[in-house]
């Protein structure tokens, strides 16, 4: 089971919320000096995603009245090309055998050496930036590759922080708080563990060049 049947009346890591803004910012180049004239160097877009996921660890929620969120977005249509994943896209959240990571015809197309190399890796994560949220009746359905689905995903690269005076420590949060009304889904302990494991792996990777220095 991916979502908790009975939600707690506090915010938890991985919760799905409604009603938060997402700031999408772009710059043409770093602003190293204060520009003398008006310069069109940056753009700020404010979006209201339908759903957002809480990425602050449970134990840190409420500190500084800030919370880290990540917008839920529709999944990549290419994910549906892999028949190993199509029945349950949340497989992308867990480690898998190298053969499962590719559509069978793509696996067959790999050279023997490449297959061997990948098999030697053993089980591993795929699509490290992404975590899939399972389908749920509370989610809006959308069409993708001639199907209607209710899967959503978060992209760890899009995590951002937002401040709201209503965000409090769990012991100070009341069930009637508007913040709690904005919560629509809570992950089960197992699913929350999968999110924690994958995001920890995402941030915990040691680059090859640093590994050499450590030895």
């Amino acid at each position, binding site marked *: 089971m991916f979502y908790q049947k009975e939600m707690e009346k506090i915010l938890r890591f991985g919760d799905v919320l409604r009603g938060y803004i997402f700031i999408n910012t772009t710059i043409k180049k770093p602003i190293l000096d204060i520009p003398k004239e008006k310069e069109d160097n940056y753009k700020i877009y404010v979006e209201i995603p339908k759903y957002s996921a809480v990425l602050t660890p449970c134990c840190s929620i409420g500190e500084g009245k800030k919370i880290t969120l990540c917008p839920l977005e529709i999944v990549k*249509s290419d994910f549906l090309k892999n028949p190993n994943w199509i029945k349950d896209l949340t497989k992308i959240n867990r480690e898998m055998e190298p053969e499962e990571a590719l559509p069978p015809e793509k696996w067959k197309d790999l050279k023997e050496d490449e297959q061997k190399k990948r098999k030697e890796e*053993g089980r*591993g*994560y*795929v699509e490290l930036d992404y975590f899939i949220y399972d389908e749920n009746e509370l989610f809006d359905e959308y069409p993708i590759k001639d199907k209607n689905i209710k899967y959503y995903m978060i992209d760890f690269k899009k995590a951002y922080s937002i401040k709201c005076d209503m965000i409090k420590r769990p012991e100070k949060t009341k069930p009637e708080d508007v913040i709690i009304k904005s919560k629509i889904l809570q992950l089960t302990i197992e699913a929350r563990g999968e999110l924690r494991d994958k995001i920890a*792996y995402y941030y915990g*990777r*040691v680059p090859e060049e640093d590994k050499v220095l450590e030895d």
Partner: protein
Amino acid sequence: MSFSEEGHSHESLKDQGTGSHEKFEDYKIIVYPFGKYEIKIRLTPSNEFLGVEEIKINKDFLSFKQKITKKGFHDVSKFYKK
């Protein structure tokens, strides 16, 4: 003659395994962690050393960094671009 008088009392039967009449050894085995090894030691019931049963690698000796670098991931992003 009663059942217990025939030698079938609880005291006379308690150490006999059903069917096998197995003889139970009078020792216990404890696992002692030592650095990156786990040593199984045989002791008497009063904790006197009898011998070493087994030495094996403690699989938890890896640091978190070593654990995560040990795990691989499959770079398949070029197959799932959009």
